[in-house]
């Protein structure tokens, strides 16, 4: 739980970019798939809770970056998300912005982290 809360604190600012980036790699994804993907790729370091993910997805949808389609799977309605054209461009710029930010943060954190590494 502690890990989750700390990760959640950083994830909150980058979640939008993460989701856009993941969707840019796949044609379409549904909510649970995204959480699983994040979990698998980070080895469980970052765990997205549905409580944090879905508001972001809905916000992006409202901004016109995502398209949704509901497909019935196993008797349940599954909502798939895919990027729109503007969503694609936004994903690219946001990813670049985040990478530059991480680089900058890394530079800031480097002296202290060197000892631990």
């Amino acid at each position, binding site marked *: 739980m502690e890990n989750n809360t700390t990760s959640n604190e950083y994830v909150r600012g980058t979640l939008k970019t993460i989701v856009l980036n993941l969707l840019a790699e796949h044609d379409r994804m549904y909510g*649970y798939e995204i959480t699983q993907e994040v979990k698998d790729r980070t080895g469980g370091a970052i765990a997205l809770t549905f*409580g944090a993910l879905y*508001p972001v997805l809905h916000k992006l949808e409202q901004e016109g970056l995502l398209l949704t389609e*509901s497909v019935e*799977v196993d008797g349940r*309605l599954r909502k798939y998300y895919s990027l729109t054209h503007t969503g694609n461009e936004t994903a690219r710029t946001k990813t670049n912005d985040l990478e530059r930010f991480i680089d900058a943060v890394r530079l800031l954190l480097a002296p202290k982290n060197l000892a631990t590494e």
Partner: protein
Amino acid sequence: MKRLQENRIDQISKYLQANKLDPELLPEILDHLACEAEESLWDGKPFEQIYRDMVKTADAQTLLNLSVDHQNLLAMEKSLNDIVFENRNKSYGAYDLRKGYGQTIQRSVVMGVAFFLLLVMFPKLYARLTPDPKPEDIAYIVEATPVDIIMEEPPAPPPAKEELAPVPKTVKSLTPEVLPDSKVEMEELPPVVEDLESAQPSTATVDGADNIEVIAPPVANVPVAKETAVGVEKREEKEFVHVEQSPQYAGGNEAMAAFLRKNLKYPRPASQAGVQGKVFVQFTVGSDGKIENATALKGIGFGCDEEAVRVVKMMKDWMPGKQAGVPVRVRFTLPIAFQLD
């Protein structure tokens, strides 16, 4: 992959509904939780434990936050109308009208402005669409049937004038030919002196007699002496109006009056019309006393004129008028009076 049984899914769904999750979010969250649960089942966990873990992660607060976030998101799109009609009958027409109001106004403004502009610009547009008439353009083509125009020949200048003008006025003057007497023709001879002498006296006498004859009738007192002097030589055929001795009815005026009374009959038309008056009958008494050329000079009509003439013609011979003792023809006018009783 293991599937969740229907009743399990219903259980999760009921849990979500109990925590007042927004109905719009329900299918998505349900799917997410179901997927998680199935994943856990795959790992071999019993459903009871899974459910407990699920309730722990998806606690009431988390679900409430989700709902609130969603509501906030929708609120950004929500208009005043949605708030006004929050708990009202939206199927009633007013909501649709209000919802479409903005669009309607926008459309009507665009249409109105477009129409107004079109109205204002119409003359210019029309002028632009219709090409300007060029000076060499032909506006109308009228097919004209060929008309034969015959040149009127100008009146030929009178050639006679030219010919006449130079000709000078000439007078026939021939040089007299000298010929022997025998060949000279006598054309017209002036009256001979002897003829003039013989004629003049004779014409003078004749003229005198003619003049008297013409002038005499209108003049009352013609010197009779002169007439008699000339009249001797005159023939008796001449008709006189005034003579020395007027002609007379044989037996005198009384006898004539008696004759007329005896023979005259009052014509019926005249008596019926009550006509009366005098009929003047003119006739000539010959030198032998016979009545000739009896006519009514002036009558009263209604058969009276004819009756008077008839009776006059019936008269016996008169005593002819005499001029210098010689009986002559005398014109006589006799008035015959018709009088009703």
